[in-house]
């Protein structure tokens, strides 16, 4: 282990293995259920009889006809963002405030390593860990689709995973920022959980509740419209929002982190 980046990856090896396997299995399960959900007469009549609010929660029935749009609505739309939020809170919280709480940040700082290097290498390791878990998600999707004999458009899957990675990195950067600014693990976890929970509520219910539509813009999940991406609509502004969240989080937190007192 020559540097903090490799050491972090090594430290988190079981975390990476667990989350990658979990993502793969989850994706595999969702794909395996596709034939069951594929619209037939019974499902269509059940859906038609549901209240509008419930229909909004389930999604567009037309999306269930193709594997890519089904996955966009049922896997990528809300479930995966919530899944990765939990992962981001645990990962970024432990790498920042968690290590500081244990006194490990002080141990690292006692070595001839600058705070910018500590910060950058830990963040980079978190990004790589996110990317590795998404490889699990992609693998699970392909294994599932091979098993049920369905095909999925490579381009759509990659675009969905690309924006999901950007959402993950944005969320990780946000939690990373809170952790490096505050140095307090429970505070970091608490704020991260609030951001994820509020975003979940806003984005889920804004489909059915008109007055929530304005507030939905403040949800971090709002800019990951998976069903629209699967239908071929890609908005550059969504990618730009996450890029701005990443840049602002990293800039502000680094400027504070390099100057502040470390907990001992």
């Amino acid at each position: 282990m020559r540097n903090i980046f490799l050491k972090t990856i090594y430290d988190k090896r079981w975390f990476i293995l667990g989350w990658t396997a979990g993502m793969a299995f989850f994706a595999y399960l969702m794909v395996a259920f596709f034939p069951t959900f594929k619209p037939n007469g019974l499902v269509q009549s059940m859906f038609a009889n549901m209240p509008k609010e419930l229909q909004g929660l389930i999604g567009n029935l037309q999306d269930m006809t193709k594997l890519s749009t089904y996955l966009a609505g049922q896997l990528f739309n809300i479930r995966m963002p919530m899944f990765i939020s939990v992962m981001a809170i645990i990962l970024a919280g432990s790498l920042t405030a968690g290590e500081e709480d244990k006194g490990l940040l002080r141990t690292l700082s006692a070595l001839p390593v600058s705070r910018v290097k500590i910060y950058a290498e830990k963040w980079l390791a978190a990004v790589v860990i996110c990317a590795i878990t998404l490889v699990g998600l992609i693998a699970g999707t392909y294994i599932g689709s091979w098993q049920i004999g369905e095909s999925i458009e490579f381009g759509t899957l990659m675009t969905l995973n690309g924006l999901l990675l950007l959402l993950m990195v944005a969320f990780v950067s946000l939690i990373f920022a809170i952790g490096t600014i505050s140095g307090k693990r429970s505070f970091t976890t608490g704020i991260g959980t609030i951001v994820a929970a509020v975003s979940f509520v806003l984005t889920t219910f804004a489909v059915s509740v008109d007055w929530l539509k304005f507030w939905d813009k403040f949800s971090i999940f709002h800019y990951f419209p998976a069903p629209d991406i699967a239908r071929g609509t890609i908005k550059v502004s969504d990618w730009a929002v996450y890029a701005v969240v990443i840049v602002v989080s990293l800039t502000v937190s680094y400027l504070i982190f390099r100057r502040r007192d470390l907990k001992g």
Partner: protein
Amino acid sequence: MTNIVLEVENLTKRFGNNTAIRDVSFKIKTGEVVGFVGLNGAGKSTTINAILGFIRPTDGKIEIFDQPVTPENAFRGHQSIGFASGDMALFESLTGEQYLQFALHQYKVRDRSRLNELIEIFKPDLAKKIGELSRGNRQKVALIAAFMASPKLVVLDEPSSGLDPLMQQRFLELIRAEQERGTTIFMSSHYLNEVVDVCTRIVLIRSGQIVRDFPAKELSINGGKAVKVVSRHKLPGLKGAEDVKLEKTANGTEVSFIYKGTPTALQAWLGSLPHLVDFSVNDNTVEMALEDLYEKESPDA
């Protein structure tokens, strides 16, 4: 280039309304081994944290090798500084060997010979994960990491806590050997005998302020007994009694002094006291001498 390795000038650190250290100043020259002594909460660790750039001073300045220290640039000096503390957190998922290798890489040192020498001295269990090691073994790993890159300055905060007496002895031998190599050492310690044993100077801190800075040999104990006597009557004089102190207590007057005469004379003197309430005779230890010094000196004196 001066021969001052570490200069602390009017260092003050406040945490909210609490002033942890105030106007702390001292200089350490090349090759000195300086003991930093004070009670818990006196400001030792805060001073050390500021010296290493873990915290930003509220006021004052710190220079190491003529370079000012701030949290932003402290890492530059760390190339020539080793650090270990008694409660040092180490990466529990790594083995001792992995941690030392990782730390050695950060110093950009490829030669393992010094590391191997230190492993030979402390004989830690490097194959086990640090999380599975005893406190003493973890402390050995931390001490090896502090010295393995042949630093010019070593800062130690309660370094030998957790070490068994044999390892404590080896640690003191290492400090002496490092001093001969010209390494400058700044160490805080609870074990005062250890400080007097290896340090050339002692800096005493009390309530966040330096109260005394003196050569360690001034504190060396020339034997003698610490005697305490409580009596309701005036006591006769005793030849060989030094540093006599009187204190009124509920049971009478407590007289304490260091006795350097013969045991027979002391025995005879004690026997001659008519209304003796209580007495004690103990070896005059370093701890007692420092305690005495600590009580005498106050930041306002």
